[in-house]
């Protein structure tokens, strides 16, 4: 087993819900509630779930854009919450970079590509203008763009090209971990494959670790080594991608896979049935008791609303569901 590059333990983020003039706290939105995972060197972990599952909050916590209510983050075995601001700036931030979902808003429209891609270098290193320029050209080449693209502004590029620029920026500091928040979902179908292939190539070339946030299971299956399925702020199933997709254990995972499979109308007439969940994800302000999924689960029994499921390890992966106790 390879060493974990990043380990998250029991990440929890509650947002207060306030009311009235005095901002009295009347409740807490449990955006994430006890999320643990680890990202291995050179591998991809994917957090999968629908909107409101807490995957973006988790990613923002890893990027230190969000202060956690509780939980620990270990980077190369070191507790980063013990780091001083200068240690963070030297040892953590440059090594954990990000590519965001929307390539139309993730770049300052008034900066040239040269300055966008070079910004991490300008902020974190003492390189000269010339060194930065050379490095930017080298990075653009790595992501399949031309050196003269450096002089253009973001609006002159298509979505796919912009996402390449975003990748180049994320790689500028030779990071160990890149957080990819829905890296292809804003792109056209024919461009997605280009970007996914590029990301996979760069991972191998630079021994990068990826934390991928995604809602599209097929994308995840293509990209990820390890998968965590999230529902309402918690991970409900976690394990090696191949095993998880071939033998999904949690009823929610099965429903999600069924909803994402390619099924033709004729298949349905022949009785190949999809699992269609009833209802929608409950509010994280008042998560259901017991198993949080029981309100939508077709297999729910009485105890599901009362007992909180524990982690149950089956094969190389684990699940939180009372059926496996």
């Amino acid at each position, binding site marked *: 087993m390879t060493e974990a590059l990043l380990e998250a333990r029991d990440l929890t983020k509650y947002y207060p819900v306030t009311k009235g003039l005095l901002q009295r706290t009347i409740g807490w939105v449990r955006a994430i509630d006890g999320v643990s995972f680890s990202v291995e060197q050179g591998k991809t972990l994917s957090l999968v779930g*629908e*909107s409101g599952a807490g995957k973006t909050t988790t990613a923002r916590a890893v990027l230190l854009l969000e202060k956690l209510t509780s939980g620990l983050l270990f980077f190369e075995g070191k507790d980063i919450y013990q780091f001083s601001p200068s240690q963070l700036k030297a040892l953590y931030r440059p090594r954990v970079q990000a590519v965001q979902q929307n390539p139309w808003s993730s770049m300052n429209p008034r900066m040239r590509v040269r300055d966008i891609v070079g910004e991490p270098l300008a902020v974190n290193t003492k390189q000269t203008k010339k060194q930065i320029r050379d490095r930017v050209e080298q990075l653009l080449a790595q992501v399949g763009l031309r050196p003269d693209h450096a002089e253009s502004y973001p609006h002159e590029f*298509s*979505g*796919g090209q912009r996402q390449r620029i975003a990748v180049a920026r994320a790689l500028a500091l030779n990071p160990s971990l890149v957080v990819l928040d829905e890296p292809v979902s804003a792109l*056209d*179908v*024919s*461009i*997605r*494959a*280009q970007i*996914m*292939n590029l990301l*996979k190539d760069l991972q191998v070339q630079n021994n990068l670790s990826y934390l991928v946030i995604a*809602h*599209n*299971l*097929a*994308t995840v*299956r*293509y990209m990820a080594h390890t998968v965590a399925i999230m529902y309402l702020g918690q991970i409900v199933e976690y394990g090696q991608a*191949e095993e998880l*997709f071939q033998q999904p254990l949690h009823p929610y995972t099965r*429903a*999600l*896979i*069924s*909803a*994402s*499979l*390619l*099924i*033709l*109308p*004729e298949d*349905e007439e022949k009785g190949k049935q*999809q699992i*269609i*969940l*009833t209802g*929608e*994800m409950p509010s994280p302000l008042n998560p259901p008791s017991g198993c949080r999924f029981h309100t939508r689960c077709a297999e729910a029994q009485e105890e599901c609303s009362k007992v909180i499921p524990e982690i149950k390890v089956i094969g190389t992966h684990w699940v939180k569901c009372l059926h496996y106790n």
Partner: protein
Amino acid sequence: MSEIVLRVENLRTSFFTRRGEVKAVDGVSFYVRESETFGLVGESACGKSVTALSILRLLPEPAGRIIGGKVILEGINLLDISKKAMRAFRGKKVSMILQDPMTSLNPVYTIGDQIAESVRLHQGLPDNMVQPEVISALRLLRIPAPEMRLRDYPFQLSGGMRQRVVGAIAMSCHPRLLIADEPTTALDATIQAQYIALFQEVQKKTQVAIIFITHDFGVVGKMCHRVGVMYAGKIVETAPTRVLFQAPRHPYTIALINSVPRLDRKDERLYSIEGQPPSLMNLPPGCRFFPRCSVSETVCREQEPPEVKVGDEHLVSCWKVK
């Protein structure tokens, strides 16, 4: 076979911008039958939404103009009738669902009022008959406790429910044709599955013909009976859904299907189509896909390929397909 509800023939729509003419839709032909869902699939700016707007004559004027073709609904060419007659058609015979349920509902009216408005406008019912129509529309879209929901405002509903209300408005006047422009794109996977199942049910009950616009092949497979694949303003291949997935003929369709990762198997490497779609302002003279095509030859560069029939309801525009 059931009756053809809508027939679009050689539709051409352009946008006239300061930089020149953008040929957004350039000779598109297809038809939809009763109880049938016809999918228009393609990437952004391929002209699929403009096709829909042209059918409804809702193009942003004066930049957008239909410059040729026919849109025939129940024997009437919608491009010939007056604006007033067209308004009567819209909502009554043809209605539309847009992608974003947040912006297609007016936040200051209750959903009951919004459906009632459409019912009143198109059916001319007396006031006491409106309410039952509204409730039956909500029921058709399986909105729970419709009598209670009437008084809700859009912000009180979840995204999935809101999209159902939009559907109820569209179906409230029993249209013959429904145009749905990416109605599921903003929804989560499990909600999307609910919505598609719901629409299949609505279609069975009402025999409505649906034009379903999407970029998502997964949704196409579940929802559509026949599909037209659009590229740079043209339909390059039309086929029944099963045929399209199992025996696609146009290189673009083949490449597109191969470039989408599959959930039911592990792909080691995706096929990727290099380059980008051409600018609609400077189209190449020959086949539009030629610059990105892996099997192209000289003729593809010089002449536009004709549409060839290669099977039952299967049409392809490619020089390499005989």
